[in-house]
């Protein structure tokens, strides 16, 4: 990991350590209960320019890239706020439409086919449902990606969030808000076509956003587990002295490292407009989602019953991991994208290495 990414992570970790709600926070009433958004941390992160890194300065962003945004999302993964949705989905969507950062708390979503969108003069008018929008009840704006016809570029719309009464409140396993909004002829506060951004590209951004969150939360599980097993004495020794504990912790570390490396690689490839970016995003989403099972299971197993209570903050990380791995596609769905990429390429090794064969000759062995 290069130095400037580590600096960014340190900035975020500093915010996390000073918040009541972040990684090192106190007991929460129930992991599946309600959580308020941490407005003060959101403001600090915005003031530091860390939320809108993937948006050019000319549009009110701070002009970094997705790689920097992913570093922010990993470090701030457990902060109760739509950080990933804003930094890794809203910002690039706005960039694609050359729209300015709307300010306040920003979330993002991908519209389903049920959403009806029509242009009325200068205005864009939306009707229909936006389902399970992250943190919608606590947001000021939601950036919506609307697919175009037949896989062409669609458009990006910014909506002012509705009053809470107009929402159907929902949640995920971690109690994070996932609210459904049934729009009735709502006008976008801003909108623009995004010709370069097809539905696959948008989904890839969303998948990478969740993958980056997973990488961060998985890393938090590893840290907690290391702390716990080093402090906890059983049978006269720290748990961490037990070989079975060491073996399993090492496996978790492997999963965590893989998730971090591959989300970083995918974000970097997107920034570089690399030809492998699409594949690396699918790999990042697949690998991050598939790391969750072992990371969360091992975290709970090594913590014992303690980790299953809401008094201990392990569950704050694991319940998020269990939700995020399914959002915008689980590991099976993303693996299928990889399989399709293989099928579309000349041969598997060429696809893996991202190289083109000099000539298209069949390989027989």
């Amino acid at each position: 990991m290069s130095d400037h990414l580590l600096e960014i992570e340190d900035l975020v970790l500093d915010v996390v350590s000073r918040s009541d709600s972040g990684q090192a926070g106190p007991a929460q009433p129930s992991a599946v209960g309600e959580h308020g958004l941490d407005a003060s941390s959101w403001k600090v992160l915005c003031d530091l320019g860390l939320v809108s890194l993937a948006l050019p300065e000319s549009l009110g962003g701070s002009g970094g890239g997705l790689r920097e945004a992913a570093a922010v999302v990993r470090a701030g993964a457990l902060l109760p706020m739509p950080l990933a949705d804003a930094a890794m989905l809203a910002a690039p969507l706005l960039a694609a439409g050359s729209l300015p950062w709307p300010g306040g708390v920003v979330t993002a979503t991908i519209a389903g086919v049920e959403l009806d969108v029509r242009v009325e003069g200068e205005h864009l008018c939306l009707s229909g449902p936006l389902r399970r929008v992250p943190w919608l009840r606590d947001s000021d704006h939601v950036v919506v990606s609307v697919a175009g016809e037949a896989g062409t570029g669609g458009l990006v719309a910014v909506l002012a969030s509705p009053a809470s009464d107009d929402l159907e409140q929902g949640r995920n396993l971690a109690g994070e808000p996932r609210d459904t909004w049934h729009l009735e002829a709502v006008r976008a506060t801003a909108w623009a076509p995004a010709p370069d951004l097809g539905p696959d590209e948008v989904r890839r951004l969303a998948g990478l956003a969740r993958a980056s969150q997973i990488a961060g939360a998985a890393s938090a599980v590893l840290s907690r587990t290391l702390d716990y097993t080093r402090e906890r004495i059983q049978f006269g020794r720290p748990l961490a002295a037990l070989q079975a504990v060491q073996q399993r912790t090492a496996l978790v570390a492997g999963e965590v490292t893989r998730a971090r490396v591959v989300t970083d690689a995918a974000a970097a490839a997107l920034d570089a407009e690399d030809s492998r970016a699409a594949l690396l995003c699918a790999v990042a989403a697949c690998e991050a989602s598939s790391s969750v099972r072992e990371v969360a299971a091992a975290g709970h197993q090594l913590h014992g019953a303690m980790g299953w209570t809401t008094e201990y903050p392990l569950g704050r990380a694991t319940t998020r991991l269990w939700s995020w791995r399914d959002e915008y596609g689980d590991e099976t769905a993303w693996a299928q994208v990889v399989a399709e990429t293989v099928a579309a390429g000349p041969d598997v090794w060429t696809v893996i290495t991202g190289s083109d064969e000099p000539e298209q000759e069949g390989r027989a062995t």
Partner: protein
Amino acid sequence: MAAAGAEEGSLRELRLEVRSFLEAQRRAGAFVPAVDGWQSGIDPEFSRALGGRGLVGMTVPVEYGGHGRTQAERYVVLEELLASGAPVAAHWVADRQMAPAILKHGTPAQRERLLPGIAAGERLFAIGMSEPDAGSDLASIRTRARREGGGWRLRGTKVWTSGAHRATNALVLARTADSETRHAGLSQFVVDLPHPDIHVKPLHTIDGGSHFNEVVLDDAWIPEAALLGQEGAGWAQVTAELAYERSGPERLLTTMPLLRAWDAARRREATSLGPRDAIGPVVSRVIALREMSRAVAEVIQDGGDPAVAAAMVKDSGTLFEQHLVDEVRRAVDAELDPDAAGLTGLLAQAVLRAPAFTLRGGANEVLRSIIVKGLR
């Protein structure tokens, strides 16, 4: 092991009878199927109803209010209760380990006082074993019982005590003598609840429940008659009970309601099989584990020592329970919503509860030590 296969007529009849009853109860709204109902589903009314039908304390002798039935019959009933996802936690522990323990170690007076209520499904037993600093290391417990006024005074703190907030009784393991060997000097007590000097504080868990409790024994006085079995023999008694606790069908069928819901959804949606249908390996595994579990049940019935085999069943079985959850999750294309009804909600519940499966009743790593030490 007896020839495995389809059940003989009487067992099958019993199975179908219980199944019909549970199906009728479910249709009548008496319960909503849940995973982990034997630990998380406390419903005293439902337990009483089962007791009224003779489905609790089945192997307890008739003279103590039981039904004198076989272990095989009891096993069939337990399976149907588990697979239906019924709320049976209010009587499960009493039926599973307290009835045999009291039969084995209890005085005649204790048997007469406690067994009829257990068989009626009316006694909810909490097991006060773990302590804040003990974890899996039970020999290091610090709760003390000292003789006083013709009885005992208990002082200490227990944790992970399931159901204590609604329990009628607790079984408390306490140190009655200091000893060089850490396993000596422990004794078991049956304590009536509520008790003015026993304070129960719920522990909230990430599945949104509070099945567990912290129990503070604040110099609680109990009569001499509360001592179960021999003073100082608590360790041996606990160890014997653990084999019962580990060998039952609840160590592999906890998530069976999820498999059934998935199966039902597949039939409704006519999901095509595909060449590598994910349900195949899952069903194969559960059938195999069931045969293993039934083999252990027979060892118990025959009076053998099932400690190693029981540990093996629980290790494999609980890993399967978790594996099943993951297989269903990957087969079902949905975000997990804890508020949803049906399959998605059941799946959310299962994901949140699964971590406990391989911790309770002895963490699986501990079970593996027991297994490997018992090999050959």
